[in-house]
């Protein structure tokens, strides 16, 4: 025999629900294993070998096996916040833990300690003057960086790229380096700074998004490597910066007058 309250409880648990409620429950059930399903799909061999527990430690934490998946994503696809990998007090999220990895020079009001090349590139893209101290450190007879009056003139980026390409050597990588330094590449991992984090995402955990973020990360790595080569080269000898400034100044052109109908 059972008590009346037990019987009522049992009857309640067997009461039918409407379709909306049932679908919501099933959807929640699927979402609770969404990351593990991705683990199975993306890294089936690792999943099969895994001995990590898939039991959730509590409702707001990743399971050991989910954390194992995050580590694999970090190794093979794109960077994942270390705090999450090491479980330093961060709870789990239904979104991909995207975090900015690009340079943060443009958001830095004080570039005094930044490399000379970085200060020069930021000044170019911000249409700022370079102070005498920087010009002196680049070398004697370094031309002043022209400040563009945007009402009458503009920077012809295509022309600048062409001039750098024609100059050859490391100079041909300079436009890319400038774009990376100033977060202006069109690449998510480089262009999104911590200040602009709220403007992107959130990114859902699904195969398409993981693939897109992985492709973007591979491209970002190549661009960043190119920037580093240019910065290392100019760190050893800043004198080519004078030539870069000259090429930049030559790329400033008069705005074309708009045709009136």
């Amino acid at each position: 025999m059972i008590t009346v309250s037990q019987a009522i409880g049992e009857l309640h648990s067997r009461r039918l629900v409407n379709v909306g409620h049932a679908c919501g429950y099933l959807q929640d059930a699927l979402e609770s294993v969404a990351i593990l399903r991705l683990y199975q799909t993306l890294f089936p061999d690792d999943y099969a070998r895994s001995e990590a527990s898939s039991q959730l430690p509590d409702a707001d934490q990743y399971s050991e096996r989910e954390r194992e998946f995050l580590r694999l994503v970090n190794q093979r696809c794109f960077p994942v916040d270390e705090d999450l990998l090491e479980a330093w007090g961060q709870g789990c999220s239904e979104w991909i833990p995207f975090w900015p990895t690009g340079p943060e020079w443009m958001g830095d009001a004080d570039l005094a300690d930044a490399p000379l090349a970085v200060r020069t590139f930021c000044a170019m893209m911000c249409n700022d003057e370079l102070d005498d101290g920087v010009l002196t450190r680049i070398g004697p007879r370094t031309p002043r960086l022209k400040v563009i009056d945007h009402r009458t003139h503009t920077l012809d980026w295509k022309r600048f790229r062409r001039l750098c390409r024609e100059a050859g050597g490391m100079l041909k990588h300079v436009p890319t380096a400038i774009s990376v330094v100033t977060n202006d590449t069109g690449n998510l991992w480089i262009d999104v700074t911590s200040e602009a984090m709220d403007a992107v995402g959130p990114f859902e955990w699904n195969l398409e998004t993981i693939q897109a973020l992985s492709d973007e990360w591979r491209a970002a790595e190549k661009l960043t490597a190119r920037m580093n080569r240019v910065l290392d080269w100019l760190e050893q000898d800043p004198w080519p910066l004078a030539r870069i400034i000259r090429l930049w100044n030559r790329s400033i052109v008069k705005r074309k007058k708009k045709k009136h109908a």
Partner: protein
Amino acid sequence: MNAAGDQVLVALGAAPGHVNPAVALWLKLQQQEPLSAEDLLAMSAEIEQAIVEGKQEQGEVEGALRTLKAANPAPSRDVPLGF
């Protein structure tokens, strides 16, 4: 009631009992709780299918109800019991 109306009632009466697939799976999972992550992973294809079929069936039922509600009323030749 006319012959066509009779046929409808006969068909409805003869239709087998049925529970929406999403509700049926919800009930099954309720009886199996607590479910582990591995259990849910093994059932994920079934769950996805139940959600799709459940929603589709719900749409069909709602459509049928809308049609019935919009149907023109017809007088019955018999007085229903209880009136």
